[in-house]
């Protein structure tokens, strides 16, 4: 990557470090939502099913089941609309992309919690 682009991307990255949560972790994403003139924070809680790690352009896919419907949102983690990402718990998983969860429902779609897991360190 050219030095110029590296500079630009370093500038768009958030000053505050982002927690290094992993696939399988349950997280609460605090998203700034604009309704008319007012701005409020909405929380999207779900399981991280994959990272797209690309520096300032990194995104993370979070999945939850809402009223029986699977909902996935892709968050650019350095976007100013993402206020912060809160770590909730760690799930035991064996791969980096948890796309198989899409085909599971109900009890099968649960992940075993890693009990002794510590909160992820900051970047």
């Amino acid at each position, binding site marked *: 990557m*050219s030095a*110029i*682009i590296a500079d*630009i991307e370093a500038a*768009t990255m958030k000053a505050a470090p982002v927690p290094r949560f992993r696939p399988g972790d349950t997280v609460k994403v605090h998203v700034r939502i604009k309704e008319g003139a007012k701005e409020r924070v909405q929380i999207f809680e779900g399981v991280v099913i994959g990272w797209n790690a690309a520096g300032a352009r990194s995104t993370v896919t979070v999945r939850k089941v809402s009223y029986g419907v699977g909902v996935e949102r892709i968050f650019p983690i350095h976007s100013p609309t993402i206020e912060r990402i809160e770590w909730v718990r760690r799930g035991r998983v064996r791969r980096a992309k948890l796309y198989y969860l899409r085909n599971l429902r109900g009890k099968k779609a649960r992940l075993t919690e890693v009990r002794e897991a510590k909160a992820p360190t900051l970047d």
Partner: protein
Amino acid sequence: MGNGLGILGTKVGMTQLFDADKRAVVPVTVIHAEPNVVLKRFTQDNDGYGSVQVAYGDKRPTRTNRPDAGQYAKASEAAGKAVSPKKVIREWRLDGDPSDDLSIGSEVTVERFDGVKFVDVSGTSKGKGYQGVMKKYNFKGFVRSHGTHEFFRHGGSIGTRLTPGHVLKGKKMPGQMGNVRVTTQNLRLHGVDAAKNLLFIVGAVPGHKGSVIEIRPATKK
């Protein structure tokens, strides 16, 4: 031949920026445009039309021939500071005579694009080599079954019989694709970084990274 002054720059590559207002990710092409130096002015009285000749991109002085070196020496003298020899020289046609701020040796910088919303961009597209009609012109090719053999990616018939007796001019056939001058119009300008001589253009721009690109305010917006 669009009228109006533009700038020459180098395509750096693409990245993304966050647009706070639209709360969205914007894909941008980054253009690095060091100040272009005015080498020559053409006026109505003298030449019958108005334009300026600008130069861009430093090159080694040893790569400059004597006549060109003379031009740079003239520009240096007029500017009161050294103008190093440049790789690319281009003439921009203007509506009238060049304004006084475009004196010989003066610089055209990205600051001119402050407040410009849309731009036209010209460059040499990426060369794709010798390509068939399916890639080059999006022909459909041939059915893969029903007895077709050795005729899958062909363009089909290229003409009729005795009338007119020859293949029509301009018939789309295989050949070199890309590596031609391409202009993309009405690209939105996301922003200007005057300190770093950068332009941020929304979307893709012709050419490979490192190629010299012409950017000018959009003629149709």
